């Protein structure tokens, strides 16, 4: 009896409670989209807000409701593929992005005009007499971007210039919002050529305050209309689909505001004075080659003209020579 009673009591309670649960399950059940949970599992849980929704759970809920699946930049293409898989939609190609500080003027190249005293924050510093830096567009270097970066991807050169380490950047775009001078831009990670200047001042003003500022000479755009555009006295790379990197255009930039990742590592590009010399040499080299090319072309044209005049139509060989030398210049 002492053994049977507990068993009976326990089973009895179980039966009653179970019945109650069964009833509750029938009337109180809430339909929850199981996909939300599945999406939460695959989203990176960085809660960075790059997608524009409050945290990963917010994005997961909106995804089920049918928003653009290609908004999670920290997750990258893998995540997009998985999301597409779960939602049963077509995967879109997500171009991985990184943040880029569009200023190359450290204190050595774009000097300060005064000593700023106050809270160590760019936002606060630019309110005092429009900032301590002579260039009114340039990086103040007090680190508001580094403050908001949770992945320690923002670093500084010795001359107080912020730059983003692409390998650490998860493309959350927090720094973009933090910069009071709007210097930080999200750029496709596979692009190698970037304009590292945001100054919209006329060329002569920029030149006066920064040795590496874009002077809006338009050489790059003239070289490559598809990739570069100069607007408001400021050159920028067209990162849209279709445009491609043209390192030669980077080479023609006289002040050296265009950085070519194929040639230089970002840190050495920003800090090493020797690279400016190297750039000049390469520019001279390019110029010499182009001059030779032009001369050759002229010669060929003249020859062709002559040949035409001589009724011998052999203008072909001179033409392919041009793209060939261009490639060699890379």
């Amino acid at each position, binding site marked *: 009896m002492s053994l049977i009673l507990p068993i009976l009591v326990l089973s009895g309670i179980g039966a009653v409670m179970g019945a109650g649960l069964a009833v509750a399950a029938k009337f109180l059940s809430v339909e929850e989209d199981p996909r939300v949970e599945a999406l939460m599992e695959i989203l990176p849980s960085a809660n960075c807000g790059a997608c524009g929704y409050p945290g990963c759970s917010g994005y997961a809920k909106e995804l089920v409701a049918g928003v653009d699946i290609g908004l999670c930049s920290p997750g990258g293409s893998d995540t997009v593929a998985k999301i597409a898989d779960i939602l049963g939609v077509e995967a879109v190609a997500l171009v991985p992005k990184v943040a880029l500080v569009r200023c190359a003027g450290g204190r050595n190249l*774009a*000097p*300060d*005009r*005064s*000593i*700023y*005293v*106050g809270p160590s924050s760019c936002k*606060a510093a630019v*309110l*005092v*007499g429009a900032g*301590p830096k*002579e260039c009114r567009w340039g990086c103040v270097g007090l680190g508001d971007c580094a403050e908001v970066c949770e992945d320690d991807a923002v670093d500084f050169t010795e001359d107080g210039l912020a730059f983003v380490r692409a390998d650490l950047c998860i493309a959350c775009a927090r720094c973009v919002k933090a910069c009071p001078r709007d210097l930080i831009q999200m750029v496709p990670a596979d692009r190698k050529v970037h304009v590292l200047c945001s100054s919209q001042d006329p*060329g*002569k*003003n920029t*030149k*006066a*305050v*920064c*040795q590496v500022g874009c*002077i809006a000479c338009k050489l790059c755009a003239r070289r490559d209309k598809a990739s570069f555009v100069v607007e408001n006295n400021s050159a920028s790379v067209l990162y849209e689909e279709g445009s491609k990197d043209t390192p030669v255009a980077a080479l023609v930039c006289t002040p050296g505001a265009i950085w070519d990742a194929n040639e230089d590592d970002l840190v050495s590009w920003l800090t090493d004075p020797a690279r400016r010399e190297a750039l000049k040499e390469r520019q001279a080299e390019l110029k010499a080659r182009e001059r030779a090319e032009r001369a050759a072309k002229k010669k060929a044209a003249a020859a062709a003209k002559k040949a035409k005049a001589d009724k011998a139509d052999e203008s072909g060989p001179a033409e392919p020579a041009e793209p060939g030398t261009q490639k060699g210049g890379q």
Partner: protein
Amino acid sequence: MAAEDKETSKNAGPGAASDAGKRTATDSPVEATADSPEEATADSPEEAAPQMLTVASSPHVRSGESTSRIMWTVFACLLPAAGWSVYLFGMKAAIVLATCTGGAVVIESLVQYFTRGRTSVQDGSAALTGLLLALTLPPGASVVICLVGAFVGVVVAKAVFGGLGHNPFNPALTARVFLLIAFPGPMTRWPIPLQALADKPQKLYGQSTSWLDAAGRSLDFANAKTGAALHSLAAKVDVITAATPLAVAKEHWKRGTGELTTYSDYFVGSMPGSLGEVSVILLLLGAAVLLIRGYISWHIPVSFLLGVIVMAGLTHLANPTRYMDPIFHLLTGGVIIGAFFMATDYVTSPTYPLGMVIFGLGCGLLTMIIRLWGGFPEGVSFAILIMNACTPIIERYTRPTRYGLKPWAEPEAS
């Protein structure tokens, strides 16, 4: 001389600018004459550097007051009372003072070293915490007690909350209450200030005091009739303890027995008590300096004392044999040091005048409630800590009315 330097660097400006103008080859005449500063500093940063002006937000002048000056001034204002306690209690008091103050400073430096924070130990807040803590301890407190107290005050009550300015509770009082709970025995052993008594042997004949009786019974104290004998007695015994007047009031008075010393004794400290409660005069002197220099405002101390007086007065009027009079309550225990030095701690008390008055009144009333009906004979520490906890909410509801809400009656439209 410096002005000449400035001139030369200025003169270098247009020249350098014209160079720049030639290089860009754009509109060079204008460029050459432009004396706008960009060119000057951009092309000759080395020359410009020593002449660079500092730029900061207005205002460009300050009152010259600083946190460390305030802290060290309060510290200095407490020193006379501390010195008096050394005179009364001898080396024991000196050891307590030194251990607490030194301990607090050393512990704060260690914390700041290990947390790699900015070293701010020289601002005197740790030293002040240590000194205030020492003044709340009984003279016989051991070195261990002092160090534990300093640790609690500096680390548990302050550093873990984010350091100076962020602690919700008065560090010294937090430490004292911790010690009171942690070491209930040693923290309630109150030595008699023998040295002071020995200088005035007539006290023994003139007055019969309850705590003196208690002590005398155990040590044949009352028979030592001369000062010299008392001195030798003081040298022989390690410590003679007795109840503080407040404890006497609480225990003996309840039973209708026992007598207390005169008010003048409380004033000069001829009674058992903590280091900081034995000299009302010197504490008031220090407080006066703080008040005159504007380091504390009258709101908190006055309302604190008012709260004590009102409660004590009402109860005394209701039943004079059971409850002591207001003056007794003002002069004994930690009311004076509490009202002028503890409750006025900037960080843990309200900043707006109305809030200060509420805070002070609360402290005074709570002190009296604990003294009269609570489990402890003394309630200043608890009262102040409880009111510390209320500070944020007091602060919230006592903000000053901003300018611009005063109604203005437009003159009769003509």
